[in-house]
């Protein structure tokens, strides 16, 4: 198997794993981890794109930016999760039912 195929399959497995992890749990931190795994898979795709069309420098710039943006998202998401834990005393998303209709 050639290198790009391996990377492509790895990316697809990661994105699938992230989404399955996201769907199969009610725990907030596990949801955040699932989202992060899926987002990391996207950086693999970008690198693969840069490798295939020979624009590695541009791809690296994209990936570094995506990693920074992702960290910000993860920090805000975990901050909100911690505040919710302090309110409800549990990390279960089934507690998030006060907004309905």
């Amino acid at each position, binding site marked *: 198997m050639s290198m790009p195929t391996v990377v492509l399959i790895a990316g697809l497995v990661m994105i699938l794993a992230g989404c399955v992890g996201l769907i199969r749990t009610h725990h907030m931190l596990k949801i955040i981890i699932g*989202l992060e795994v899926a987002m990391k898979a996207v950086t693999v795709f970008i690198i693969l794109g840069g490798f295939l069309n020979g624009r590695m420098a*541009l791809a690296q710039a994209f990936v570094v930016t995506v990693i920074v*943006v992702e960290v910000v998202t993860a920090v805000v998401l975990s901050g909100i999760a911690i505040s919710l834990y302090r309110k409800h005393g549990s990390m279960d998303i089934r507690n998030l039912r006060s907004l309905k209709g």
Partner: protein
Amino acid sequence: MSSILNGIPYVFVAAPLFAFILNNAVPRERMRSHAVALSGGVAALQLAAAILGFALLAASGRGEVRFGLFWSVDAAGAAYLRVNLVSLFLLLCVGFVALASALTAAKTIDDHRCSFANLFMALLLGMNGMLLATDLFTLYVFLEITGTASFVLIAMYKSSKGLEGAFKYLTMSALATIMMLTGLALLFMHTGSLAFADLGAAALSGASGEMDILCYGALALLISGFAIKAGAAPFHSWLPDAHQSADTAVSILLSGIVIKIAGAYGFIVLVELFGDLYAVRLSVAALGVATIAFGALLALVQTHFKRIAAYSSVSQVGYILFGIAAGSPLGLVGALLHVFSHAAFKSTLFSGAAALHEQLGTLDIEQMGGLQKNMPVTGFASVTSFLSAAGVPPFAGFWSKLLILISLWQAGWIGLSAAALGLSILTGAYFLRLQKKVFFGPRNPRWDDVKEIGGTIRASQIVLSAVNLGAGLCFPLVLLYLQSIGLI
């Protein structure tokens, strides 16, 4: 004149940044009472600069003004930012809604005023950056800035509801990010560049004229991502939660402009780049019809004032998507004007929500009733926004919806045009229910001593209802102007 025109785009970047730095450089206790006023000043400056820029650019006959922040844009292949008539009009809408929000915030935001002002400026910068971007990746980065500022604005007061709304919004938004970035990666794999100039239906199909299945996948992912950001059905579930739980000044921003810049502007870019593909326009139109129907039907059964307004935003975004999907200049003008009229009437409605919340302490419409006598200004402003939303002439909403209907008709989608017309009856229905429960009918004796709101909220309600009516009355003039500069 030309030098003024070349200088104007810098205002949209420099003003929020300057306010941001000033907010943090001056000691907090001194800044506290001026922070929101400073934000309002930035918003007013942006409004004035956008109007001036639009008039100058239209008169000069140039298509766009290119500029770079710390680099020269003259070299071949250099990255650049730009403003054109579309982005200047949307910058005008951003300034307008931001001003309305700052007027409300002056009254409703009590704690953390400096933090609010900082996040407000970050949000403004994010939206302006999206409108100035010339490649899809820059668009994505500013989209994330806009998003992050709005999540923190919703969760800022750490109320149970605010945190819950922000968590739902953030989870959906992270999914949107994953979809969009995968789409961008696939496009990048295919074309080797994400600049608008290098993308397009022709670039995707290549020499053979046949499009790769991966490109269709990329476009589908991009459309789904922007649909989540715009709150289009069936991805709308986060929107009412987030918009209901935020402070009302933040709700004005979110409902009035953020969903349109973060979502609908993405569709404008996509249709501009890939509008030659019928499938792209058709899927945007399909999203539009589902969005209008879902939003309006769900708004009919809500009992929370802001939740009704939020579902109404969902439904009105559908009309904007219709205008974009038509793919003609007339459709785009209709969509942009609907962005403006929706911004005006939704800001009016949320200012009303702020007034009711300040005076009554609740927003449950089942407990209200007969408040027209107590709060005549709020009642009147609410009626103007209802009439504009329902598309009753001569209010602003009538004209923009009319242009969208005509553009759908011209695009050959007569069925969709009829559906848009029929579904606007539902808009009338849920707003009529809101009016009846809140302002008309017998008064709940609990509210006998309720007084009208004063100060900046009253001022903003008066100005906004004047805009609802005035923009509608002047609309033929606007159309003549647009025709004279060759837009339609």
